[in-house]
């Protein structure tokens, strides 16, 4: 079970990385097309703005979840660095527990949002707004998983 959580976190972390690169390509590509059409072809496109915003929501939330796995989210370790080994580990443990809990809340809240906006469509392309809103519960689930994997590492007594 412990092994499983860690390999799942590693695997999904890698998949997220690919997805992030793809989303960035879609974002830049569609905006580039829109600039090209406006200034070179002389005819404005309406869809790139909506597509790029959709990609941006997913990009932000997916790469944000990656931050839990890669531990790149900004934190103030001024005080916790001064704690002795054992107390430091307890803090690390509690921190990861809280992050995992927030992940679960985001799943709950995000799923609620998806359920309530199921009928809505975006203004220009008439796409379901769900396509954007699913990013919240997915991000929450990834945050939960990565925090759980980190929790195990701190349980084994290593400090990050």
């Amino acid at each position, binding site marked *: 079970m412990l092994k499983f959580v860690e390999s799942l976190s590693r695997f999904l972390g890698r998949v997220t990385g690919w997805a992030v*690169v793809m989303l960035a390509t879609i974002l830049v590509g569609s905006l580039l097309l829109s600039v090209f059409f406006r200034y070179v072809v002389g005819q404005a496109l309406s869809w790139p703005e909506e597509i790029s915003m959709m990609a941006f929501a997913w990009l932000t*939330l997916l790469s944000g979840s990656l931050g839990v796995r890669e531990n*790149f989210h900004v934190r103030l370790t001024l005080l916790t660095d001064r704690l002795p080994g054992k107390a430091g580990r307890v803090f690390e443990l509690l921190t990861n527990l809280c*992050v995992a809990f*927030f992940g679960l809340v985001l799943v709950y*809240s995000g799923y*609620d949002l998806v359920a309530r906006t199921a009928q809505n469509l975006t203004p220009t392309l008439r796409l379901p707004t769900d396509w954007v809103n699913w990013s919240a519960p997915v991000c929450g689930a990834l945050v939960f998983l990565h925090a759980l994997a980190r929790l195990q590492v701190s349980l084994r007594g290593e400090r990050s």
Partner: protein
Amino acid sequence: MSEAAWVLTVGFLGLLLLGMPLVFALGLSSLAALWLSDIDLVVIAQRVIAGTQSFPLLAVPGFILAGDLMTGGGLSARLVQVAEPLVRHVRGGLGMVSVLASMFFACISGSAPATTATVGSIMIPEMIKRGYSKRFAASLAVCVGPIGQIIPPSIPFIVWGVIAETSITRLFLAGVIPGVLCGLGYMTVCYFMARRYKLPTMPRATLREFIKAINRGKWALFAPVLILGGIYGGIFTPTEASIVAIAYGLVVGLFIYKGLKFRELGSLVLKSMMTTAIVMFIIAVASVFGWLLAYEQVPDKIVAALMGFSDNKFVILLMLNVVLLILGAFMDNLAAMIILGGLLIKLGLTLGIDPVQLGAIVVVNFAVGMETPPFGYSLFVGSAISGLRIEEISKSMLPFFLVDLGMLMLVTYVPWATLWLGKLILG
């Protein structure tokens, strides 16, 4: 203040000090406050997603990716090299080269740590080779970082523009004069330091060397013309300019300077997006927090308390600077902007400050926070490049910090410095 407002503010600070990553300290304290006020938790997902849905914010990943592409492609290094033949023969010349190089680089990059990383990794070894002390070289590289986000384009100005609904183009122009004056101030410090420590000067560059540097760097030099010219010429919005900069950086990096390789592009994009994620994830989650602060009317209460303390504009502005400087030293600047945005806008309105000048006061204060200990991204980068500890670098930063204070006073008390250029160009 209500119970929820206390949980929100004190809970957040407590979690932050206990080592919780900032973004989750924001999320968890918001969660507790929502719970206490009996508000539907769907607000969390709703605000987080809404926090990303702003077209001008797309310029944030845009300029971060453009900067990384230009550094990877070799444009940034050539831009830095153009600065060398210009001032290297002056006393303290190599220090001045670093300052000038950062001002050039600032015209394509909007981030302080990226400026410190680019200029520092080239200039710190160069300065040490010519007899500058490692501490001076490192502290200079750290201090020129903030110039990168004061001179446009600038990520904090973009974010402030979105929060305060102020024209980003006008805010960009507000940074030009303070940024250039700050650079000149740093150069003066370099001159006096060089005189005091009897640092060697380098031979004057020949016309041939000068032409060679310009020729080698011409494609890099065109990048700021394209970006800034496009924005101020009214051709591009900042978001479009960042996308055009990405395309330009890609073409020049892949085919002309050949610093980029196709198969490395994926990992470069991923690295850029992780840098973006640090910023954007905070912005998204902080918008729940900001919404709650507004809901609890915390900004109004604090402004009322402040005005009760003193109604002298001069004094309140001074207090504002002190508070922003201290916050900037301890916190991430964009998170601080989103949290305090409502409060600062309210204060600006009460005092009758122009919104553009207010933006400049906020952004410049937080830019200085990038170099000040204990929490400054430029400082972290400078320490990583030079191998010196943060304490060692901070001590020799003092003369540059005095220049920063001068710049802050200018931005705060002389509206002309931030507003004149915008009026001149945009009317």
